[in-house]
C-alpha cells in the first residue's frame, strides 16, 4: 500500500497527553517535527499510547530512538539515555501486556522476528506529575530545550 521508502532512523515519542508528564515523549516529538527540515533522514513519530505498534515502527530501520516517561527512581525531570541491555523492567520478564506495552519485550520480539534495528536508544524522563491534565509540570516544561539538545546529539 505505502511504497514510500522508510527513513533509516526513527524517533518515537510515547505517552499519554491526557496525563501531564506521561505525555513528555509526544511533546518532544511535536517540537522536533517543527524542525523536520533539519533532519532529512529521520522520521519523527508521535506513537501516543499505541505501544504495540512500536514493533512495526522500528521494523527494519537502522536506528530507533524512543522517548518515554520512565520511572527510574531519579529526581523528577532527570533525563537518562540507556539501551535495552542496560535495564530490566520491574514487570515480570515473561509477560506481555499491550497498553502497558513493555517496550523492552517488544524489542525482544522484534529481534526474534529478525527485523530489529542495529541500534536502539531509549531516553527516559522521570515524571513529576502523572495527574490528569494536558500540560507538563513546570519541571519538565522547563527542561524541554535541554532534553531536545540531548536527543539531538543522538541524531547528528
Amino acid at each position, binding site marked *: 500500500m505505502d511504497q514510500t521508502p522508510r527513513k533509516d532512523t526513527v524517533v518515537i515519542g510515547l505517552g499519554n497527553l491526557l496525563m501531564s508528564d506521561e505525555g513528555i515523549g509526544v511533546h518532544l516529538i511535536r517540537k522536533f517535527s517543527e524542525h523536520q527540515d533539519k533532519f532529512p533522514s529521520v522520521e519523527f513519530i508521535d506513537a501516543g499510547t*499505541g505501544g504495540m505498534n512500536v514493533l512495526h515502527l522500528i521494523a527494519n530501520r537502522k536506528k530507533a530512538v524512543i522517548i518515554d516517561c520512565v520511572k527510574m527512581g531519579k529526581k523528577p525531570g532527570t533525563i537518562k539515555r540507556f539501551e535495552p541491555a542496560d535495564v530490566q523492567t520491574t514487570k515480570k520478564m515473561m509477560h506481555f501486556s499491550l497498553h502497558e506495552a513493555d517496550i523492552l*519485550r517488544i524489542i525482544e*520480539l522484534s529481534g526474534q522476528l529478525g527485523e530489529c534495528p542495529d541500534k536502539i536508544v531509549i531516553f527516559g524522563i522521570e515524571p513529576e506529575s502523572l495527574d490528569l491534565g494536558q500540560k507538563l509540570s513546570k519541571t519538565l516544561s522547563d527542561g524541554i530545550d535541554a532534553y531536545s539538545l540531548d536527543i539531538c546529539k543522538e541524531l547528528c
Partner: protein
Amino acid sequence: MHNNLDINVHHITRVEGHGNIVVNVKNGKIEKLQWQVPEAPRFFEAMVRGHSYQDIQTIVSRICGICSITHSLAATKAVESALGINVSEQADKLRILMHYSEQLQSHTLHIGYLAAPDFFGTPSVVPLVARAADAVKTIVKAHRIANTWSDLIAGRTTHPVTLIPGGLTRIPTEKQLRELQQTLKDAVPDLKKIAEVVLSVAANVPKFERPTEYVSLKQTTPPTYTFYHGGVTSNDNKGAAVPIEKWHDVANEYMVEQSTAKWAKWHRDAYAVGALARFNNNAELLSPMAKNAAKTFGLQKGCCNPFMNTVAQLVECFHVVETSIEIIDQLLTKGLKTEKVTSSPKAGKGAGCVEAPRGILFHEYEFDKNGKCAAADICIPTNQNHANIQKDFEKLLPEILDQSEKDIRLKLEMLVRSYDPCISCSTHFLNVQFVR
C-alpha cells in the same frame, strides 16, 4: 476437589491494565471469589469540559491506544447529534472503512499476542516465535496491514487526525483506495492461515457455558452486521433496538465495593459486550467468508461460552476485510469527491455509540450556545463486562474445583483474557531498574 485453596492473581497479565483474581476456598466451601479492578478511576470526562465541539474527538482519541479510532468516532457522532450536523454518504463509508481498520488491528493483536499463548501453552508471544514462527509472522503481517490501513484513512495508526464533525479533513485518492483494496484481497489467504492455526489448537478452548445477556448495536435499515450505525439491542430485548439517546437505560451503571470501575446491568444482573455479543445478535448478517469461518469453528448463534469470544473476533476479521473490499468498490464506482465540511456552534446535547473491538462504547456531550462542552459522559465496554466476568467466575469455579491449582488459576485468567479487557486505557510508562 480442593478443601482449601488460595489464589491471588495480583495484576493478571496479558490484559490491558490491572485486574486481580482472588479465590479463597476453606473446607470445600468457596468463601471468596472476586474479579477486582483496583485501578484509580480516571475521569476523562473532565478533560473535555470547556473545550470546543471541534476538539472533542482529538482529545478523547488519547484515552486509549488501541481503541483510539473508536473513541474518536463515538465522540464525533455524539457531537454531530448534539449540533444537528449531517454527514455525506461518502464520508460515512470512509469512516466505516477507518473503523474496520481498527477492528482488524485490535482483533489480530488479541488473537495473536494475548490469547494465542494460552492456546499454545506458552507464557507469552515471545517464546511462541520459536514454536510457531510462521503463525506469529502471519499475525504480525496482518496487524501491519491493519496499521497501514488506519494510516491511510485516519491519518495515523493511532489517535486519528482526519475526523472532524461533519466529515473528514482529508480523504485518500482513488489510486490509494484501489491499492488498499488489493492489499485486503491479498490478506485473505493470511487470514485463512491464521484461522487454520487457531483451529489446530481449538480443542484447548475450555468447554464452559453460562446463559448470558449479550448487548450490541443492531442495524435494520439496511440490515447490516453493524459496528457503527443502529440502536442498542440484546438477546433479552426481543429483537428490538433502543435508540442510542437512551443508552443510560441499557448500561444502568452502578458501583460495587470490589472494583473501582463501574459495573453495568440491563435485563439481568450482568451482561456481556464484544465480538461474541455482536455475533449472537447479528450473525446472519455476516459476510460469506465470515460465515464460513464461524461454521468451521462450530460457532453458532446463541453460543454462551465466553472463551469463544476470541473465535468470534477471528470471524469478524474476515467480515471487516471482505466488507471493506465491497465498500471500496462502492466508493470507486461513484467516484471520490472533495467535500467541504462546515459546521457552526450551538447549544445541544447528543449521544454517539459505536462498537469498539471489545464491545459497545457510549459517548454523550452537552454544549453551550458557543459550542463549548458543558458536560460529558463516557461508558467504555470493559466496564460493561466486569459484572459478567464475576458471574462467569461464580459458575466456572465450582465446575473446575477438582482440577489442579495451576489449571484453576489458568482457566480463570483465560476467562478474563477472553473478554479482551482494556482496564486502563491510559497509561503505559515503564518502571525500570538499571542492571549495569
